């Protein structure tokens, strides 16, 4: 048992809201509760008022869409939307992009049916397949997750723009919102961390379980699809921070993220969920996912002064408060000037640019990553596996990132090395399979 929200005496008396009512952690509330304003790639902006009574109440009373775990830490694979989107972030991620090697849509369909069955088993903590005790055969499940608890595992599937090329005759079904991203300032994208016909996001509170899922999905795909790139990610676990305070990114700053409220269905429909009326009927109740592998120039960051670091974010490192304020959740005052007439929060600080005019929102679901070292330079390869979901990247993520790519002070310390976009399917009912609305 690792999470405060899943334990407690009154658990089970009200499956949907009981957990929230009781002991939602501060950390989860940070993630869940909406504050309006910008979604951020890094750091937090506009978090003032997050813990107002009104919003707490709102979070408590509208838990229906957010995928919360049951008492066995199972998040159902089936549902109206795919799990892993408005689900409160787990401790770990293993992301994988696949390329299809088959040219047959029938085989693609078979693949997604097999993946659906395997995913339903894995998210329930069950073994894949029926041949796990036959000495004459390789076991159908690779076994490293045997006996482990389900650990809030979610598996989320999407297809990239390349899926709609000439191979499968589906070019006409490509949603306009599924567009390749334009080049942004600060991009140094590498093909080994970019693109993919299919994107699969696995989250779990146990890295071994998350790895097990990707490994087995890749195995099931053999002969039909191959791995194109993968990235593991983490954040500090609930075990090491039982109070659930705002997590810090690898730059040492609190990463509070001004996410919209996942319990507010109206808001989710506006920000996250695609609608048939947007153009692509098969994407109704799905969402568009943006994945960016953002390397932090760790060595450079580490030798910049605390003053420069804080000016870059527009926040104090220790408290997380906006510069000039005392507390993490103090209001972001973009108007105030110092005695020389300069803005207290620098014009090109991350917090100011991310906030923008406050009208653009995305649902971000990022993790830190560490991939050993860059052997060319001998430096650490670590950073942020940025992931966000939005209803239409052309109106949400793209304009936001254009603004940041051009002038964010943070760009001196980060570089975008990988990028991919995926149209994540709507959820399925038991008996159906992921992607059935498209294939």
């Amino acid at each position, binding site marked *: 048992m690792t999470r405060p929200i899943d334990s407690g005496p009154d658990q089970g008396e009200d499956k949907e809201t009981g957990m929230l009512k009781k002991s939602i952690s501060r950390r989860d509330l940070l993630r869940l509760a909406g504050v309006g304003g910008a979604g951020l790639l890094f750091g937090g902006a506009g978090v003032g008022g997050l813990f107002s009574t009104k919003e707490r109440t709102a979070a408590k009373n509208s838990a229906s869409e957010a995928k919360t775990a049951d008492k066995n830490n199972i998040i159902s694979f089936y549902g109206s939307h795919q799990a892993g989107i408005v689900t409160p972030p787990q401790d770990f991620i293993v992301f994988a992009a696949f390329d299809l*090697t088959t040219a047959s849509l029938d085989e693609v369909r078979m693949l997604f049916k097999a993946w659906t069955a395997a995913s339903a088993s894995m998210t329930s903590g069950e073994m894949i397949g029926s041949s796990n005790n*036959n*000495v*004459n*055969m*390789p076991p159908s499940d690779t076994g490293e997750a045997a006996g482990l608890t389900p650990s809030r595992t979610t598996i989320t599937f999407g297809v990239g723009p390349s899926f709609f090329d000439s191979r499968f005759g589906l070019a006409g079904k490509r949603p306009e919102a599924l567009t390749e991203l334009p080049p942004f300032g600060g991009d140094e994208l590498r093909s080994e961390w970019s693109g993919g016909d299919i994107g699969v996001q696995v989250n779990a509170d146990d890295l071994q379980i998350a790895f097990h899922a990707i490994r087995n999905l890749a*195995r099931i795909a*053999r*002969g039909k699809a*191959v791995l194109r790139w993968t990235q593991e990610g983490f954040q500090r676990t609930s075990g090491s921070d039982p109070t659930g305070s705002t997590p810090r990114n690898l730059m040492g700053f609190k990463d509070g993220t001004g996410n919209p409220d996942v319990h507010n269905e109206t808001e989710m429909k506006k920000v996250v969920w695609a609608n048939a009326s947007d153009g692509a009927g098969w994407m109704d109740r799905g969402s568009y996912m943006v994945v960016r592998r953002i390397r932090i120039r760790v060595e450079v960051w580490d030798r910049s002064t605390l003053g420069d670091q804080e000016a870059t974010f527009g926040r104090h490192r220790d408290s997380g408060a906006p510069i000039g304020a005392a507390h993490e959740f103090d209001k972001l005052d973009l108007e105030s000037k110092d005695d020389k007439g300069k803005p207290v929060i620098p014009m090109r600080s991350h917090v100011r640019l991310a906030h923008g005019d406050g009208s653009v929102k995305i649902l971000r679901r990022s993790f830190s990553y560490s991939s050993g070292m860059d052997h060319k330079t001998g430096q650490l390869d670590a950073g942020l596996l940025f992931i966000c979901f939005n209803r239409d990247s052309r109106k949400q993520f793209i304009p936001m990132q254009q603004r940041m790519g051009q002038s964010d002070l943070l760009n001196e310390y980060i570089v975008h090395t990988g990028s991919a976009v995926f149209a994540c399917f709507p959820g399925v009912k038991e008996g159906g399979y992921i992607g059935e609305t498209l294939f």
Partner: protein
Amino acid sequence: MKFKIVAFLMACTIVFTGCGSNAADKNEPAAVTTNDGKEAAATDDTWEPIVNSYRQFTIEQADTFIIETEKFVTAVKAGDVEKAKQLYAPTRMYYERIEPIADALGDLDPNIDARENDVEEKDWRGFHRIEQALWEKNSTAGMDDYADRLLEDVKLLRALMETVEVEPGLLVTGAVELLNEVSSSKVVGEEERYSHTDLYDFVANVEGASKIHELLKDKLNEKDAALNEQIAKGFADLEQALSAYKTGDGYVSYLELKEEDTKKLSRLIDALAEPLSQMGIILEA
């Protein structure tokens, strides 16, 4: 020097004596079983012709292997470096096709096929020892003993093959093992460190696996036609990809492969080996 040769001959005698009694007294150690599980289906009559065909195939390969090794060894001992280089890779293919059998025969595989550091320096002999001299030193100096011993080892392999009891389980796992060989050393160019003739071994391993599938496909078709079809397609895709690297009677040097060639071939191996590993269902009653 004289003493060394005498000692070497004595060692050979002992090996052969040991071999004779071994073969006569007890078959079990050389018999190959893959597991202690029930192999109900394996005892039925339909397996006999399959097992016999495979035995015949491996013996044919081993017989030709001796003839070709003799030619190679002759070139080495004559100091004909060019000729020896020319014969090296094609000769090895007869061995690579039947590697599961050789693997089943204990020390024989390292004696014939060990790479440097696979065994202790004093025990290192066989093809790769001579390969190193041919390509690294461009010479056959000091290789006479190794050449002689190689031919003896190859003959011993053929002799011991009589003792191998080929069981259905060996066929099923052998096919996968052949592809695993490719996956772990040939496709990454680590088998032929000096000659870079890895693609010859690659092709021969695949041919060996393909032979097994050919013998089992009727049985497999009865159990799972879709699986059989998937395997057949996997072999066809792989063979087609490999044909792009043919040159003259042989194959291009591994050094000519680009990163994307290696990746493509490796993925085709994985795409084939996964369904191939499910062939075990034909052992079920």
